[in-house]
């Protein structure tokens, strides 16, 4: 299938973009940074086309559905969303260097999907034959992507804050590339401000769907519960800003832990725990 080849090309674009961003980090050459962004955008455009194509291909073989129904497809969509959110932040705030901490997530996701996950287009089980699937997956994954960006920014914050505390803020050093901690803190907050409502919507559409499909909007299934755990962590993050002693480092850590929980909710639950969302499992 053509779409599978396109996804391979996308992976290469994201890899080149990541390498450029690392190069930018080391060389501080603005052109290299710009190349990183352009490669990311090119890969993104290609991936958008490939996702559309895969959608069409599923109709061609007679089982037409949106490309968001199994683990492989969701990992692709996660990569796509991450690049989208990064792209928006890049355009809006012009701190290109963030790419060095965000594009690796997209690259990792693409490489994993392309190398290890079965890429077949499968028909949908009766439980998944619903438009709610689409709304649910899109909102959740855009939220996850925003949290990935927030996590990347938080890592930068911690590195920068540490080097500032040590006082080796030598002009021209690697750290001078990083935005000031104040800006990183703000970007972290902004990314979560985008991610939190999306996650909330994701949980709500999931609940609405569950209610429609089997009459219970909440059944404390492990996947549901983990999404709520993620939600609690980010709610704690949002309130941390109003509480003395919880800003700065602790907020950055909450954001990183939040993303760890997000990844567990997304993958760990399927691999290590059992639940209703069996469609995401590896086998």
């Amino acid at each position, binding site marked *: 299938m053509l779409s599978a080849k396109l996804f391979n090309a996308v992976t290469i674009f994201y890899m080149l973009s990541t390498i450029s961003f690392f190069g930018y980090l080391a060389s501080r050459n603005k052109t290299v940074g710009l190349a990183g962004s352009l490669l990311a955008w090119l890969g993104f455009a290609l991936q958008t086309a490939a996702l559309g194509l895969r959608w069409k291909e599923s109709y061609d073989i007679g089982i037409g559905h949106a490309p968001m129904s199994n683990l492989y497809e969701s990992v692709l969509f996660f990569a796509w969303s991450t690049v989208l959110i990064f792209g928006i932040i890049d355009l809006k705030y012009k701190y290109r260097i963030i790419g060095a901490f965000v594009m690796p997530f997209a690259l990792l996701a693409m490489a994993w999907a392309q190398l290890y996950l079965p890429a077949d287009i499968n028909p949908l089980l*009766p439980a998944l034959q619903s438009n709610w699937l689409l709304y649910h997956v899109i909102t959740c994954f855009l939220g996850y992507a925003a949290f990935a960006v927030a996590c990347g920014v938080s890592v930068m914050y911690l590195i920068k804050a540490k080097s500032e505390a040590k006082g080796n803020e030598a002009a021209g050093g690697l750290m001078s590339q990083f935005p000031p901690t104040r800006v990183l803190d703000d970007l972290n907050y902004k990314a979560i*401000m985008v991610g*939190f409502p999306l996650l909330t919507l994701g949980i*709500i559409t999931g609940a609405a769907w569950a209610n429609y499909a089997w009459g219970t909007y909440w059944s404390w299934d492990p996947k549901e519960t983990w999404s709520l755990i993620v939600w609690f*962590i980010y709610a704690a993050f949002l309130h941390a800003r109003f*509480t003395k002693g919880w800003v700065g480092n602790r907020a950055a850590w909450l954001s990183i832990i939040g993303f760890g929980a997000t990844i567990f909710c997304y993958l760990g639950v399927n691999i290590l725990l059992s639940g209703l969302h069996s469609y995401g499992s590896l086998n």
Partner: protein
Amino acid sequence: MSTNQRSFPGQIWDFFCSLKLTIFLLITLAITSIIGTIIPQYPNIDERYWATISAARRAFYDKLGFFDMYHSWWFLALLAIFSINLISCSIKRLPHVLKFVTEPAKTISETQQKIFPGKEFKLHGSVDDSRDRLTEFLASKFAAPVITKDGSHYHLFAQKNAWCRLGVYVVHFSILVIFAGAIIGNIWGYKGFVTLVEGQTINSVKARNNKDIPLGFEVKCDQFKVSFYDAPGGGSSQMPKEFKSILTLTENGKEIPGYKYVRVIVNDPLSYKGITFYQSSYGPANDPTTFYFTVRGRDNGKTEQLAIRPGIQSKLPDGRTVTIVDLTDNPGEGQVAVLALSDHGKEPKFFRVFKNNPTLDEMRGDNLIFNFTGTDARMYTGLQVNKDPGVWVVWIGCIMMCVGLCIAFFMSHKRVWIVVQHGYARIYGNASKNQPAFQTQFEALTEELQKQNI
């Protein structure tokens, strides 16, 4: 905190109003919730699980409510404290915010003048004249200002979207609304289950606690059907495509318009009088006791009906006998009967007859052509039956939460002050959210103002 002077009730009040408690509760809820995702929860505990843990551990977990932790006393207590925290915090802060929104400070304080971005510019006309022109300017470019005289100078104050300061409270209130919806559902609703064999009618369902609940109307299952996806190589695969129950509802035996032969499939339930039926499971209701065939003579074309029961020899029109040996039901070929045909004591001949496929049997070459038309076996359909009068309250809470979050995060309360004095004026601005965007807007406003040459 110097709470030494506070009275004891005062201290308790402060405790419940504190945001540190909020963070503690959110993190505690997050951590404790993990337990129920690792330890199996009622009612979905596999019997084999008990063998994997020691009796002492089982007793210990039982005591802590770990096998139903989301309904355990301590988890519910955490949620109760969470609600109290939310309510106390709102009671403490909301009046201030409401006052802030409805009676804003119309003059800008010394401190605010130091921290808010501002700009000074010269005035050419008299104070009164400038004041009027500035008022006009603000009204056309930002929002109509309120004018306050303060000694020799004037404060012009204009604001936009003051009400969006309430967004956070909408979010917080929505959580209580969702809790209320869940409680309503728990008290006045129920979850039940019913299995219906094709042709059967019921008027009550079994609730989780095994009590029978009357529905107030009757439900009949007319038919149940499963269909499978086509396998890649033709035929049908093992993968179910659709389970479908056809139901008819009646009230005191009378038909209800629009509720005759209603299709219920997964993701498309049926609701009547607040009670909803969801397609949940299915299976065979009984083993077949009779197999139906038609037999056609190749020579004379005569067709006869035949009912065969297992273990009993049935006579055929030509005097031979037939017995049923086996019934298989493989996806891809459907139901297949295996028959043994005996001709007066000779070795019986075995052959397979596919359901509703007489042409296939024609190829066998025998004078009698069999068509397998079915059995008396029935399917049953398993329906989840729910009544939840609180669900709408929950959805209203969810919508409030989304709207509140958008207001809290993406809208901002913008304020602009102009202090007019003899000869010069100073303009200040402040926004509750997204400072950089406001900064740009504020700078554009000041530039515009300077061009006016007031």
